[in-house]
């Protein structure tokens, strides 16, 4: 990476101008004070100069503002931390032949949306034949045996099913995030597998639109997939774990 590309600023219409836009609401009645308060906040956030380009009242007690301005901060691209895919993306054909070779039997996948969460579209996008974004789901893969338990599945039910099916991997979806429901539910799930099976637990995968792939450690799972995940990425990861010997 060339030196001049290591540090970047937002781009408005000129390189390095640092221009951003933001909008927010303050619990202050509409008027000059509210605009001044917005200006102060923008300055504290590193926007200087900051322009309050619009404000209007929301009821008697609140003000909505739109601010444009230039941020002083620099981003150091070398310090950006993301989960980069460390395994190759495989075609269904490659997934099947790799699994056949290294496992010699079908890989068993149990999927569910746990807790009281009733959103199945995400996990179905990964598991159902129909798939997502033009890719077929895991059920389409000959060397995968997929059990989709649907939604509102309790952790004990999931553990029990994973045990009877001798699951190699358990895939869990969480969509509702209010009061950190997705985090607490996933932690409860991973702890339950640890307690029930110790080192012989299946590979644990969590997915959902508001998960950050960096959270795997905190959640006690082996991998986290966020929004826009495709089935192929997940299948390729499963092959990767088998080859690494993570899966039992």
């Amino acid at each position, binding site marked *: 990476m060339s030196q001049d590309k290591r540090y970047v600023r937002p781009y408005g219409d000129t390189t390095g101008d640092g221009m951003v836009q933001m*909008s927010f609401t303050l619990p202050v009645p509409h008027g000059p004070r509210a605009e001044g308060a917005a200006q102060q906040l923008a300055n504290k956030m590193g926007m200087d100069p900051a322009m309050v380009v619009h404000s209007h009242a*929301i009821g008697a007690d609140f003000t*909505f503002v739109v601010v444009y301005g230039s941020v002083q901060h620099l981003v150091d691209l070398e310090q950006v931390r993301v989960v980069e895919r460390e395994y190759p993306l495989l075609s269904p054909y490659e997934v099947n032949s790799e699994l056949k070779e290294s496992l010699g039997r079908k890989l068993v996948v149990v999927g569910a949306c746990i807790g009281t969460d009733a959103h199945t579209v995400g996990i179905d996008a990964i598991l159902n034949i129909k798939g997502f974004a033009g890719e077929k789901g895991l059920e389409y893969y000959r060397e995968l045996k997929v059990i989709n338990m649907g939604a509102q599945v309790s952790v004990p039910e999931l553990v029990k099913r994973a045990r009877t099916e001798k699951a190699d991997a358990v895939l869990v979806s969480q969509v509702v995030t209010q009061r950190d429901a997705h985090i607490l539910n996933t932690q409860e799930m991973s702890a339950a597998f640890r307690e029930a099976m110790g080192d012989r637990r299946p590979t644990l995968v969590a997915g959902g639109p508001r998960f950050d792939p960096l959270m795997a450690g905190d959640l006690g799972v082996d991998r986290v997939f966020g929004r826009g995940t495709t089935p192929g990425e997940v299948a390729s990861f499963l092959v990767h774990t088998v080859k690494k010997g993570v899966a039992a």
Partner: protein
Amino acid sequence: MALLDLDGEVVGRARALAARAAEPVITLARAHTTVAVERATLRLAGITGADTTHRAGDVPWVNRVVDTIREHCGLEHGAVLPAFHALREHDLGSLTELAEATAAGQVRFTVPTGKQAERAGRAARTAVAKGLRTVDRNRGQRDKLVARLGDPARRPWIYLIVATGDIDEDVVQACNAARAGADVIAVIRSTGQSLLDYVPEGATHHGFAGTYATQENFRIMRAALDEVSKEVGRYVRLTNYASGLCMPEIAVLAGLERLDMMLNDSMYGILFRDINPIRTFVDQRFSRQVHARAGIIINTGEDNYLTTADAVEAAHTVTVSQLLNERFAHEAGLPDELLGLGHAFEINPDLADSFRMELAHALLARELFPDAPLKWMPPTKHMTGDVFKGYLLDGFFNLVGALTGQGILLVGMMTEAVVTPFLSDRDLALANVRYVLNAAGNLHEDFRPAPDGFIVKRAHQVLGEAVDLLERICRDGLLTAIAEGTFGLMKRPPDAGKGADGVVEKADGYVNPASELLEAGQ
């Protein structure tokens, strides 16, 4: 004025087929009761409160009583005979005292016979009739307030959701929304409430992605909206959810606390909460009878099918479900003006002509159900983190609403895919609605789709597919169709699902004064 030139004969056939498809399910619903129907009946008869000393947390008294009756003598004769018989036997003053005695293990419930049964039945009827009088008074009070304060100046009514999890915070947001132009406030329920087999008690502050539906929360919000109604000079309506395992009880509480609209779909709980189909159909019939009595507008949930199935391919399943919902509602005594049949703007915006198809579907619903206050639902599935695109999409949604004479317009949020809405999201969304309704004005007067054009053809095609599907449902049975994934691609067999153990076949001597009074419209 009719723009689609629908064939009256085809429309008539669609309705007749829907009635035929619904009939066996209605028969089934009449032949059964559920724990929730029995609890709803006792609530009408006056039981309130909860057992705060129980180790499982606050268990409503009505659950203690109905569960114990079931244990002692079964529910096939209904709960009121054993309950009112025990009341007399033990010389207790009220159902709440009966509940306390039940919890203390002092009551042995039996099904009375002969004179004793007659006496218990009479006492129950008097108590239930008193509850229904409260419901009637609330209906009268609503009429009076509407007459005094007025209805919204135009259609569609603007419907907005609040969902903070804390009823006090909801009140702040709801009042602000009403001041900013909302005509209907819906308090969405906490995740998971649908699967609770009891209604929580008291004011609540800790819901997940919604606020618990409780009698006290209903009362608090209705009182706040009564205040703000005076301020804004129009009657602001309140909506909640009569769905899930406690559908009939929540309908009763809505009637007792003067709620104005309730979400009450005939299949939503089956499809999207995996609740047992029979349980749902039995509960649904009773709850709709209560809504009819209370003058509550029901909202059906067809929009949801289009989040799991494709909005173009499955457009006709929406029409079929609307026809079924209409039939079930009529049978339960609801007139057209209380039928907020649902449909939605959920076609993939990347498709060519998506807007034309949306117009076709919306007009079809409008012309099939000319007297129903249709509920027009915004895009949700194709909303993304690109909130700017979402704001544009919501504008087009609002335009369809204005152009096709929808009755109730649920305001779309540009942050649909991101969070439960911020105060500012709601405010911006209302600005969007106001702009479109104002700018479009009476555009519908000028809007005439070409007689052989795309929109007209598409509407006819969807209606044709709906008739075909209804024929199949008549042949195979509605329960089979549901089991096969006809609606929303969710497969729900009749013997599976949550709450199945709460369904009881009625015995010959079954007595339920609430059902009797509601059926007779007394």
